[in-house]
């Protein structure tokens, strides 16, 4: 097996065994090392992502980015990120008067903690590479990310600031609303793959990736996840014109920095989860010959998804809260429910011996049919509403 990561870990394990430590201790130390490696993957990605995000947004919005940080700019202004990190760390941390001290201090830690926690079950390659393959994989991610709501509520409520509290309420309303379509589209994937383990879901996409077989759940999941990470069209919590800076208004220094980092880490995590669920994870050409390529593929897919996120985030304007919630409850949730019901019956009716491509084709056609029906309904509803509106106008005139 030519897997570099397995080789490296075997080499470290041999090194540790050579020092005369007993077997259980060595395996424990290996666990700790791999936990640190996994925890640092998102942190390292984010350091470069912040830089890349600034460059991209400057380019797209036609303004100057971090292209000169004094004398020490480095190539493309990369030093700027490190300078920012040091600035965050050494900034004075101001605690406003009248805050509820303990929740106020726990909230940023909790949010950052949960942003890192979901990375444990993401498969970075064939076999169990570094992380772990839980049999409840995707449900573990959903469970922990729903626990992140408290970070938001704690921060908003304990800040002793009206804007922060309103923002916390709004963003929790948004987060819980968009969790439903996310959940329902994950259910479709679990159903078709027959497993909740991330590694099995990747394995099930061996010949066809689910983006082709299940495009509708993929799109619903992507929209809902973008809402969950507060990407721009759904960016309620940082509505500067209305809410100052959201629930983290009263935070400063590193505590603010942790919210900032957690948001970026979550966005990358969405890319990783989406690639695993719908883009076939580490599957790709030549993976069987060289397993290390699997790691390359998944990171390539994560990069692609992150670029898509950046593109959406930078170019789209912000919606109002009523538009966001209406879109969710009156369009996404009914669509996801109908999709789940129809796919579950259709997929059962397909012959069990059918090849992967036949199955994918039938599912794709079903998806297109559902999308067309939904489109027709929305168009009819819109026409009706427009007629009503025009009739009202005539009455006024």
């Amino acid at each position, binding site marked *: 097996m030519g897997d570099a990561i397995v080789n490296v870990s075997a080499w470290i394990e041999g090194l540790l065994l050579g020092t005369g430590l007993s077997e259980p201790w060595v395996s424990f130390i290996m666990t700790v090392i791999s936990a640190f490696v996994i925890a640092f993957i998102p942190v390292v990605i984010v350091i470069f992502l912040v830089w890349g995000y600034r460059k991209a947004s400057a380019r797209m919005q036609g303004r100057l980015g971090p292209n000169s940080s004094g004398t020490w700019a480095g190539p493309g202004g990369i030093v700027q990120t490190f300078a920012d990190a040091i600035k965050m760390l050494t900034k*004075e941390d101001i605690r406003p008067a009248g805050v509820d001290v303990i929740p106020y201090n726990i909230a940023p830690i909790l949010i950052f903690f949960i942003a890192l926690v979901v990375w444990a079950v993401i498969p970075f390659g064939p076999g169990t590479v570094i992380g772990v393959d839980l049999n409840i994989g995707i449900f573990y991610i959903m469970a922990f990310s729903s626990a992140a709501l408290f970070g938001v509520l704690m921060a908003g409520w304990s800040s002793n600031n009206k804007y922060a509290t309103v923002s916390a309420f709004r963003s929790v309303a948004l987060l819980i609303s968009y969790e439903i379509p996310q959940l329902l589209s994950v259910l479709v994937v679990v159903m078709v793959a027959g497993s909740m383990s991330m590694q099995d879901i990747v394995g099930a996409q061996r010949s066809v990736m689910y983006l082709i077989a299940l495009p509708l759940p993929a799109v619903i999941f992507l929209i809902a996840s973008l809402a969950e990470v507060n990407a721009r069209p759904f960016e309620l919590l940082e509505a500067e014109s209305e809410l100052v800076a959201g629930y983290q208004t009263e935070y400063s220094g590193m505590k603010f920095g942790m919210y900032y980092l957690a948001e970026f880490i979550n966005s990358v995590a969405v890319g990783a989860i989406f690639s695993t669920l719908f883009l076939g994870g580490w599957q790709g050409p030549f993976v069987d010959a060289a397993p290390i390529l699997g790691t390359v593929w998944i990171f390539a897919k994560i990069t692609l998804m992150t670029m898509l996120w950046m593109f959406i985030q930078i170019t789209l304007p912000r919606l109002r809260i009523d538009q966001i919630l209406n879109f969710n409850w009156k369009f996404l949730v009914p669509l996801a429910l109908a999709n789940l019901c129809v796919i579950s019956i259709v997929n059962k009716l397909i012959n069990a011996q059918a090849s992967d491509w036949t199955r994918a084709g039938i599912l794709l056609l079903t998806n297109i049919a559902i999308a067309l029906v939904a489109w027709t309904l929305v168009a009819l509803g819109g026409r009706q509403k427009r007629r009503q509106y025009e009739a009202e106008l005539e009455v006024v005139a």
Partner: protein
Amino acid sequence: MLEQFTFIGVFLLVTLFISCAMVGLSWVLRPKRPDPRKSEIYECGLEPHGTPWFQFKAQYYIFALVFLVFDVEAVFLFPWAKAYSLIPLYAVIEGVLFILLLAVALIYVWRKGLLEWM
């Protein structure tokens, strides 16, 4: 199975350590010059006015209620979806019936106009 959760446990501790270490590091490095005027609440350049713990709209609560119902539904639907390949068609339809009952609730709330943001 418990070996897998050993990793998860260690990972939770490591991430908790990293999160706390970041705050701790800044606590060591940062300057500490408190000033009563620095610690005033920021409210759009005005003097803070009244307590922030005012009463909110019950609208938020209604969204949370609908969410709660769908969330609990997941407890039943995840095992159902996982066992999907092992169960016959009529059992799948039972699950669909379960979902449709919840859809009825959604439609009721929608028709009553409670999903409108007021």
